[in-house]
């Protein structure tokens, strides 16, 4: 079921991969990073965020790290997520697919050369 939902990979899932590629993050941090990366155009709401996380967890593309208290945030308990090697592979293949598309778009003169 989760595999069906991730094929093709939704953009929210890809953004989560990109966020987790650098470091392990909790839900709110993922949301903030996605918003910052897209200039505020993409703000993942609770449903979009946690449904995507749930699907990625079920597909074992990300995993939950042992929870720990965050000293910077009032010692609230948070769930941290990290990218699995399978997730990294899927992210890479998605990035490759997008790169191929971009190349085509550039060849068709839809995009100028400064991109990719």
């Amino acid at each position, binding site marked *: *079921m989760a595999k069906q939902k991730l094929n093709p990979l939704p953009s929210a899932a890809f953004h989560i991969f990109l966020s987790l590629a650098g470091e392990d993050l909790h839900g709110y941090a993922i949301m903030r990073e996605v918003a910052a990366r897209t200039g505020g155009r993409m703000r993942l709401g*609770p449903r979009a965020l*946690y449904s995507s996380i749930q699907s990625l967890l079920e597909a074992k593309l990300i995993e939950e790290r042992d929870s720990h208290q965050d000293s910077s945030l009032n010692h609230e308990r948070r769930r941290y997520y990290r990218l699995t090697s399978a997730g990294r592979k899927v992210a890479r293949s998605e990035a490759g697919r997008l790169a191929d598309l971009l190349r085509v778009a550039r060849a068709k003169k839809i995009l100028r050369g400064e991109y990719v």
Partner: protein
Amino acid sequence: MSEKIYACLLRLYPANFRQAHGDDALQLFRDRLRDETGFLRRTRLWFDIFVDLAISLRHLYTTSQAALAEAFVPHCAGVPRFFVLQEEPLRPGALFPGCVLSLAALSLLSVLLNQADTLHSPTSHATASQFRPVNRQTSAATKPDVDSAEQVVLDDAAPGETATFARLFPTPTNFSAAHADTRSSAHQAYSNATADDSAAAIRVFTQTSSATTASTSVVGSALDPERQRVFDAVIANLKQHYFDPAVARQMADALVARQRRGDDAPATQGKDFAALLTTQMRDVSQDMHLEVVYNPKPSPQSSPEEFARMLAAPQADNCSLKKVQILAHNIGYLKLDAFLDPALCGSAATAAMASLNRTDALIFDLRDNRGGTAEMVSLISSYLFDHPEYMFDPRRVPTPQSWTSSPVPGSKLANKAVFILTSSTTISAAEQFTYDLKMLKRATIVGETTAGGAHAGVWHRIDDHYGMAIPQSRAVNPYSKSDWEATGVQPDIKVPAATALRTALRQAQSQLPTR
């Protein structure tokens, strides 16, 4: 505050989402609330929340079906398990065939149930038995229940009519004593009924109420032992039998309090004492059907021989079926003076209806009908419908016998015009028959407004002189707030009782199909 609102909004999400991520979502909201201050950013936050919610709900509910399909169900031996065969949610297009199939299944079920009823009828017997309504009564109802014989339904007890109850004292000769108190013409006529009043006669077989042995001792009572015993029995009967236990307790408390105050002292006569207790009970309950009755003439309990004689009385009187005739233009005419117990008179009623089966219209003459049992009302009404109908009786909560046993195999009367003749003395079960058929638009009522005796208490004998009537149940009227109590049933065609038959015949002839 904002957090509380969001916690409420979270409840709109499906349970599986709340369970898995409810805390996370709340935490996310808290984080954003802390970080995003200022009017614009807060507005954006709430905008995000509502948009997310709106988009989410549909999506989450459709995928919750999938979650259900994937749910792990631990198997326990001997415990049935359910599997979700369809992983996709229901398509809107599937709803219509689903509805059609459900309706078809329901129709099939009702047809089968009807068939089952028909199969149980004694079809292998002669024509007369085929014509009998399918008997749904319990075995207890088909024979006189001696154990509960002391609970006698007073069919036509009207408010304030002390004399109404007096006829129920064990010997018909007591009617003369009752007669002296009669105040309404309707009940006068009823009390005038002589020893052949089998409707009442069946019911007068009473046993000493168990409540008479109960005692509610009152400290400091000024009453003599005899009256104290009656007082205790009244309280015990109220507590045991009144349909509203809370009100029964209130009444009992009030009676005891008043006795302690000495309010009962002036009531030295039995009749005054009974009237005083009646007033005190009604003051609390506002129930005019509660009554304590004193009969100056002692009425010892009926002996088994007397009871047997009373049981035989209805049959000797042809079960009050005074006339069964086929009049000109093939119009059936049945003069019925009482709706007697089907256990005794069922076969007589069945034979009467069988003899009228081929008529083109039917006139029930209830102008001299004094009431009787709701079971007989249902039995006779069964012939007039092609499907079971509820025969509302204000005295009883619905039982299986409250529905007609329609259709009666072989009956041709279900679609024939019906007329009911009434007079100002038509009362009780006869009014129930009239009222129900009028409300069901099954009969045209011709004659006078009926007497208006809808409610009744159940009779409890206390001793040879005292007894009391206690309403033990109330049924909800499906047609209106009030029934015919005190007002009577209004006829559709109002004419004097004496000319009602002529008018009904004229009406019936005008409605007959031309040949």
